[in-house]
């Protein structure tokens, strides 16, 4: 049995046509299921837990990257399969998983290629894609050594999987995360990127050198604070992927 979770922003009128088309396609493919619309009054965790008790084995999140990030944190600890239908055309998580946007994603759901992928974990919060620190005066602690950026302006990105060709070689099925430190140097033409630092890891601690805590932004949604312990949780999430995915 399927449960389709619509994010609250989909109640806007501009999405009505798209949702009708998606629902029609799901019926055509024979994978229709229950629909739950998120709102301020509905708790996502309760909704998913109730559904699994009633025999739902596939949860499908319809929305954007932030929707997926929210749902992943709820379903990661449950024995369910996750499906995604992105309503935006340029969704980085969907792209990496080979899921086409909008109605086409229904066909990917129906073909049901299920993969177990790694998740990153910051303290007790999961992330599927990246976690980022901008210009923070931080120390990255590995078991036996410490890494410290020496520039004022830099971007630290912790990748589970790479969403563009130039950043890292991360794969969500390798049991490893990657810390990529990108220094930003200002020039007449704006910011200039110089050689990145790429450090693979399974577990690190990030602390701050300054009195203030440094913010860590996960999957463009949740803000965590230093000190933080970050680790990979191998094969944590069962997810439906497309044939065009960026990993084996």
């Amino acid at each position, binding site marked *: 049995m399927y449960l389709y979770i619509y994010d609250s922003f989909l109640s806007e009128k501009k999405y009505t046509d798209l949702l009708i088309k998606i629902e029609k396609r799901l019926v055509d493919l024979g994978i229709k299921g229950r629909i739950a619309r998120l709102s301020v009054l509905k708790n996502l965790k309760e909704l998913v837990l109730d559904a699994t008790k009633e025999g739902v084995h596939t949860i499908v999140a319809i929305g954007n990257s932030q929707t997926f990030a929210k749902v992943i944190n709820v379903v990661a600890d449950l024995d369910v399969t996750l499906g995604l239908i992105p309503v935006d055309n340029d969704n980085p998580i969907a792209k990496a998983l080979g899921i086409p946007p909008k109605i086409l994603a229904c066909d990917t759901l129906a073909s049901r290629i299920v993969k177990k992928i790694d998740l990153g974990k910051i303290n007790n919060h999961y992330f599927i894609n990246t976690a980022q620190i901008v210009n923070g005066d931080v120390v990255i602690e590995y078991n036996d050594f410490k890494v410290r950026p020496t520039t004022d302006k830099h971007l630290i990105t912790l990748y589970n999987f790479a969403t563009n060709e130039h950043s890292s070689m991360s794969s969500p099925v390798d049991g490893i995360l990657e810390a990529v430190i990108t220094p930003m140097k200002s020039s007449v033409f704006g910011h200039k990127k110089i050689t990145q*630092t790429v450090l693979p890891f399974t577990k690190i601690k990030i602390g701050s050198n300054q009195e203030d805590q440094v913010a860590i932004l996960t999957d463009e949604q949740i803000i965590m604070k230093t000190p933080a312990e970050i680790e990979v949780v191998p094969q944590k999430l069962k997810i439906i992927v497309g044939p065009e995915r960026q990993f084996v």
Partner: protein
Amino acid sequence: MAMFNKNQGMPTPKNIETIIGPSVKVQGDFKGEGDLIIEGILVGTLQTKNNLKIGENAVVEADIKANNAFISGKVKGDITVKGKLEIAGTAMIIGNIRAQIMSMESGALIQGQVSMPVGNISTEEGKPEIKKSHSENKEEKYLEKN
């Protein structure tokens, strides 16, 4: 996997596992399984089971153990290389070097002893530094017999 050298430039991204860029300082005992490129500062010890490249602007204050190494930056510490060690003309090394095969460009500075043992060199901890090669063992057995 191909050894890094100055003519090859940077290896292809698929071969790279760890890069310590010029804007980073690493302190402690760094142990790596894959290829390692250092362009920044490293203080402590450094060990990799694969290839190591120390770039022109890198500063390494550490005892180094690697399978193969290409050095064009500053190193203060002893270097043990199991296979081939290439030293570029821009390199400055203060420390002893042990390598089975070594090449050095003119202009490089070395302050320390250089030894090139005939047998295999071990870069793993707890193992004897030099193991006799297969041919050496054969030679010894032949001499004992006769």
